[in-house]
């Protein structure tokens, strides 16, 4: 089964086509590398897959489901509810809320011993609105329209939301490390675990429920992940004070904490020395052995050729080759892209 299939993905920014009709299929349990010269569009593909960009054309399917959220009944109901609320508010403004209050509350309670009931107040309010029915209708209609339209517009914008995609099981790291720098190492991982901590925050604030137990459980899982990437014993260091290689590893642990099916690593070996790179290769293999499919962008050819099951090569936004490491290494187009052709112009 294909974990990820990218079909005819095109990304345009103004007049620049960063990615042009790229097809990629990543099978479950693979280590899939995307390589190519600088500016070839590798990170753009990652950003389109994780929802940071919305593809100009083409589609991304994850576990055979489109990444675009379908319009559900719940969304429509929510939009209608927002429309009703905004409509009611604009109705109040349109009929003059002061007059309404005067008619409904003050006129029904002029003296202390007046018999005030909610029913009577609502009746007066209804007749007051009835007396201004034209304005009331206009106000309500306008509010309802803007409420529904606004909600649907913001829903449309959020169809590609990175948070929804992350919740579905795609996690990523960033080319220029984006840790929560002022947080400690373990807090970084706990943020990744957020979705799997069951406590309702309000109950936690009131100190009821299984909050403490859940937190301890999360801390235990975070410690496991940190040990897995080789950061055991550094739990309470500040993230930005870690050495560079450790920051990369922490970012991987944080991404793994979201319990992904597919992990995207954007240049995980950038800035690492050769021995750290060898360790990283081992780590990526162990991640794959946990059942997480790995997709990576990398410039280190030793790393790419050593661990990849399949490699795709991008150049100027187009896929020029795809295959096993052996096929890629001997592909003349790839050699040309990296070293230039022999023609003299």
């Amino acid at each position, binding site marked *: 089964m294909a974990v990820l299939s990218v079909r005819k993905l095109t990304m345009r920014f103004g007049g620049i086509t960063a990615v042009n009709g790229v097809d990629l299929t990543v099978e479950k349990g693979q280590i899939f590398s995307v390589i190519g010269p600088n500016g070839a569009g590798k990170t753009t593909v990652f950003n389109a897959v994780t929802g940071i960009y919305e593809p100009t054309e083409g589609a991304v399917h994850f576990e055979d489901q489109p990444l675009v959220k379908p319009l559900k009944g719940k969304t429509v109901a929510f939009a209608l509810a927002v429309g009703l609320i905004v409509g009611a508010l604009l109705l109040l403004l349109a009929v003059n*809320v002061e007059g309404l*209050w005067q008619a409904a509350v003050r006129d029904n309670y002029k003296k202390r011993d007046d018999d005030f009931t909610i029913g009577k107040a609502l009746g007066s309010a209804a007749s007051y609105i009835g007396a201004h029915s034209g304005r009331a209708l206009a106000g309500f209609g306008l509010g309802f329209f803007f409420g529904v339209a606004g909600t649907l517009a913001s829903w449309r914008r959020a169809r590609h939301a990175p948070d929804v995609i992350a919740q579905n099981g795609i996690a990523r790291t960033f080319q220029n490390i984006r840790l929560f720098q*002022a947080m400690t190492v373990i807090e970084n991982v706990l943020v990744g675990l957020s979705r799997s901590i069951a406590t309702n925050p309000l109950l936690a604030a009131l100190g009821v429920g299984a909050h403490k137990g859940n937190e301890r459980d999360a801390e235990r899982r975070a410690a496991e992940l940190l040990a897995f990437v080789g950061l055991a014993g550094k739990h309470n260091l500040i993230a*930005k004070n870690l050495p560079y290689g450790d920051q990369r590893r922490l970012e991987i642990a944080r991404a793994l904490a979201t319990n992904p099916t597919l992990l995207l690593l954007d240049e995980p070996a950038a800035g690492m020395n050769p021995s750290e790179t060898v360790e990283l290769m081992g780590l990526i293999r162990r991640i794959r052995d946990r059942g997480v499919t790995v997709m990576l962008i990398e410039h280190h050819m030793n790393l790419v050729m050593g661990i990849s099951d399949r490699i795709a090569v991008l150049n100027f936004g187009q896929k020029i080759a795809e295959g096993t490491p052996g096929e890629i290494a001997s592909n003349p187009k790839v050699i040309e892209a990296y070293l230039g052709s022999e023609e003299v112009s």
Partner: protein
Amino acid sequence: MTAVGRYWVPGLFAALFAYPFLPVAEANRGEQFTILFVYALLALALNVVIGYAGLLHLGIAAFFGIGAYTVGILTVPFFPFQQSFLVAALAAVLVSALVGIAATAPTLRLRGDYFALVTLGFGLITLYAIRNLDAITEGTKGLNPIAAGPLPGVKENVDLSALKVGDDWGARWYKYPYLYFVILSALGGVMLLLRNLERSRLGRAWVALREDELAATCMGLNPARLKLAAVAVGAGLAGLAGAFYALALRTTGNPQAYDFTLSMIMVCCVILGGLGNRPGVLLGTLLLMGFDRIATNLLDNWLQEEFDLGGGAYTKVSGWKLIIFGTVLIVMMRFRPEGLLPEARHARELRESDDQAVDSGQKEK
């Protein structure tokens, strides 16, 4: 953390609880401090929005006003509702939180300064709405009198004159500062509640969002929901503070009490004390509002009695109040921008720029 650092907050609360019982608390039994606790509650509410979630909100006074007026409408005798204080306070919290959500939801995409401008506008609109909706809010007269009655099972007056402690300790105790204890307890409760919230996944998610919104989003956190949650909690607590304010004054007072100046002073309290750090915010508010409301008056009286300087405004501390206040702020920002008691994380964030020069060297590949 030293023992002093860890225990000064519980110690402060214990001392404040004990204060009305002491002989030094003269006839008013510490009632002058009640209003400080209300403002401390408001500053803690603002701290949720600015300190935790990193949203610069310049309209917190609007929620304070909404809370006060909700209590007013539900308790004044000339409206038919006349609810007990508990119901009114709960309504104040809910109404403020809902208004907070409704007013913030359409503006969530705005960042930084733009969000601050929208909240500034929201504060002004709310103030003018309160002032001009005469039929509902009585305009500049304010809703008056607010007679909500005590909490269930509590008597507002107790007669301790039979105890015969000292000369007239028990007799003066007859009208004990009931609200002092209620509001101080509420403040303590909110401190605990916020401590728990900080340590929950929601608190961590707010920090993550503040530090790097994109990375937090890619961890599956919904930024819109988190921001709305922060505003809802902050607005709800500000509404509670407003409810106590109306109760302590027995009127909602002039709407001017909820204007932009209050929002700004609250921002100052939060920043002076230490952004994001509850004890710091508490200290900042007690110092700033204590200076404003209590210390200047005491100093004025003392100067008049000791030196008899005549009545000119320049001979009174209260005449120099704003100059002193401004100077302190400037000096603070120059020498200790992270506040009196900074939160460790915020202090690190403030000093981030120093480290970046080193980092960028490493990041070259």
